């Protein structure tokens, strides 16, 4: 009785465990929102696809290991009951098996580890925000985090910070859709700063997250995949996306939100004009 129950419970965990990953229109949630694929929000950044496929790569290996180990547990719990076995096998182990299950996982884990490196370097290394000669790419805007809001400081029309046409956009980060000569999305470089405590700049749809650390200025970059973005935008009415603070920053942490909106170049320039007029009057 207990053997049957335990085996069923373990088997249920195995089956339910796998099925809940596959079936994303899960009965608990109802249909997932339009801007979702599978369990996660759709992405439209140039790096997002790499991150997602690395996730899937690990997911496949994890699923295989999960089935083998959990399957073994289910099988053994059912099969090797004291009621059915007269005497247990007297064995202290097997050197060959130990070698097998050391070497194979070691190889797989190394594959996983090394397959991550180039993507990580592309996201975080200093070279990611430099041109080929090693000069820093121009900064698109400064991201300032403070309790409990996001402020985005733009260089204004002259493209230079510290001049008196700099303007600030509270809450909303507006990005232009820019392409380089090859037609690829251009990297937009930002300076990420915090005025007070730790915060974390998190845009789920861009698969990006980085802590804003007081006393430290970090160069980060985002790249927008325009085709991908159009597909995502076509599924929804809202034209902007969530910016979320992902590092505890005090009692108001939960409401420290912002939005990110991407505009074609001409509309972006119009927005800059509008913001300039709003903050400096007609001068």
């Amino acid at each position, binding site marked *: 009785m*207990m*053997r049957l129950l335990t085996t069923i419970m373990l088997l249920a965990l195995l089956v339910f*465990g796998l099925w*809940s*990953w596959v079936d994303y229109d899960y009965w608990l*949630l*109802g249909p*997932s*929102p339009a*801007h979702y694929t599978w*369990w*996660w*929000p759709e992405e439209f950044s140039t790096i997002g696809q790499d991150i997602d496929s690395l*996730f899937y790569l*690990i997911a496949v290996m*994890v699923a295989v290991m999960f089935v083998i180990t959990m399957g073994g*547990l289910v099988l053994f*719990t059912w099969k*090797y009951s*004291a009621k059915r076995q*007269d005497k*247990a*096998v007297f*064995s202290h*182990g*097997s050197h060959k098996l*130990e070698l097998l*299950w050391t070497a194979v*996982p*070691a190889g797989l*884990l*190394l594959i*996983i*580890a090394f397959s*991550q*490196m180039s993507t990580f*370097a592309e996201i975080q*290394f*200093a070279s990611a925000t430099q041109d080929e000669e090693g000069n820093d790419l121009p900064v698109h805007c400064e991201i300032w985090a403070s*309790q409990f809001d996001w402020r985005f400081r733009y260089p204004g029309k002259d493209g230079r910070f510290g001049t008196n046409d700099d303007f600030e956009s509270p809450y909303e980060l507006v990005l232009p859709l820019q392409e380089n000569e090859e037609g690829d999305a251009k990297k937009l470089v930002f300076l990420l700063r915090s005025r*007070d*405590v*730790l915060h974390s700049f*998190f845009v789920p*749809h861009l*698969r990006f997250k980085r*802590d804003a*650390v*007081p*006393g*430290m200025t970090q160069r980060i970059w985002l790249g927008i995949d325009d085709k991908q973005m159009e597909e995502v935008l076509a599924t929804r009415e809202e034209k902007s996306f*969530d910016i*979320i603070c*992902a*590092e*505890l920053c*005090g*009692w108001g*942490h939960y409401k420290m*939100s912002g939005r990110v909106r991407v505009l074609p170049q001409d509309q972006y320039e119009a927005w800059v004009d509008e913001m300039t007029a709003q903050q400096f009057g007609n001068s």
Partner: protein
Amino acid sequence: MVDIHAPHGSEARPGMGEPGTTREHHDHHELGFIQKYIFSVDHKVIGIQFMITGLIFFALGGLFAMAIRYQLAWPWEKMPVIGSVLFPNTGQAITPEFYTMLFTMHGTIMIFFVIIPLLTGAFGNYLIPLMIGAPDMAFPKLNMFGYWTMIPAIFCVFMAFIQPGGGPAAGWTAYPPLSTVTSAAPGSLSAQTWWLMALTWVGVSSMMGAVNYVTTIVKMRAPGMTMFRMPLTIWALFIAALLQLFALPVLTAASAMQICDRMLGTGFFTPTNLVVNQFNPETAGAAAGGQPLLWQHLFWFYSHPAVYIMVVPAMGLASDILSVHARKPVFGYKPMVYSMASIAGLGFIVWGHHMFASGMNPALGMTFMVATIMIALPSAIKVFNWLGTLWGSRIHLTSPMLFALGFVAMFIIGGLSGIWMAATPVDIYIHDTYIVVAHFHYVVFGGSVFAIFAAIYHWFPKMFGRMMNETLGKLHFVGTFIFTNGVFYMMHQLGMAGLMRRTADPYDYETYAHLQPLNEFITISAFLLFAWQIFFVWNFFHSMFWGKRVGRNPWRAASIEWDTPSPPGHGNFDAPLRVYRGPYEYASPEVEEDFVAQSRDLTGKSE
């Protein structure tokens, strides 16, 4: 130090000492009640003291979790019953400050007052001398002191709750400047200082325990008990004690630095020109020029090994219990030892995986990633060896065995989900989301707590001389297993959706708006999980006084703690003891019975 030659005699003494001589040595002064049960130097009493204290705090930490779950399912809604007492000014709903305090103290209590004291404090104390054949710990008074330094820790934690501004609210990780600058949060007023002092006291307690465990295991093993004849529980506790010895000083130093930042005006973690909530610490005379990331490095240098302090002993306990109740030797004993040792060794060079998104040098992130992913290897070896132990065995589905099987199942899930987090690019997305919450709860709740339950059911007869009720134990397991998965499994999916931790009300975000039904499901499972523990509480306290009496070895286990009376008297072993073999000789072809006790002499000398 106690006489390490008593009571089992030494090699040099002819006849290995008469039984009775050492008993007299211990018995000629009867101890009063206070010395025997309160200020006791007996490792068994101290272990049980740790256990009861840990279980009481477990209930408290569980209550905090229930309040967190209530808020996540029904944010800002009236809290039934206690709402009017706790939140009279906010319409009986949780306040955001209170919510930050809740998850801060849930983590703090569960880690520092429940899991570590239960594993190392309770089982470390209780089992080490019994399983290696020693009459007591090497330093019994230090051991007693180790328990009693938990009292100032508990005092400090309770003081933290009643400070102006409410309890500490900077998370159990206490990242500065949120935790150091008083204007950053109401919880960063005096409450944070009390929190830091509590942590320091807990550290002192753990340190005294660790010194004792290492000394006892190295110096006081019974004759014949070589290192590689020790049960895996002892190996695990030994390795965990070494981890504490090497890592704890760093946490103690770090909390001293944070206390200095808060009280003496130093600026270890305060950058220059910091203005928090219109207050610049420099205008109040404090130094600046520090680095917030420094705290993260120091904190995780301890707190990552602490994760292994919380899971390695659980692995040891589960290995022993699996072997006893499956009536089969542990598969690959030495690989088990080596894998635990390498988990501990690697555990010191992976702390940076908590900081992949922190702005730390990304080249460091790479190295931390490789080390972290490789730590999955010894974990995998352990899982395979547990399965190897079960293969061809004769499983008795007793309550301890059920929880040990549950431990393996939970550890598989918790271990596998860790690989995503170790992979830096993937972690950029899932860092600080509910995938992380799911992962560490599978390891620490599904893993460590299941192993603790298994160990309590398994060693309860030794501790109190009475069995716990098996029917209630099985009932306890079934509900706990189902609801644990109900609570934690779907948190992976919440994390996939990007839902971040420590958020009082995520549903205003468009990205998360649809997640409320799933959170309601999790919350209901959590309430049921919490309520289900009544079967355990009843069983534990009822069996302590009215359980079925047992003899020395109710489970027919081979390790030597079962040679003692149940419960063992002062000085533990009532006959001279010699160890002839490893602790897992089940189903041995040498004898008729299905096990050979470690202390049984098969040459016929003492038969």
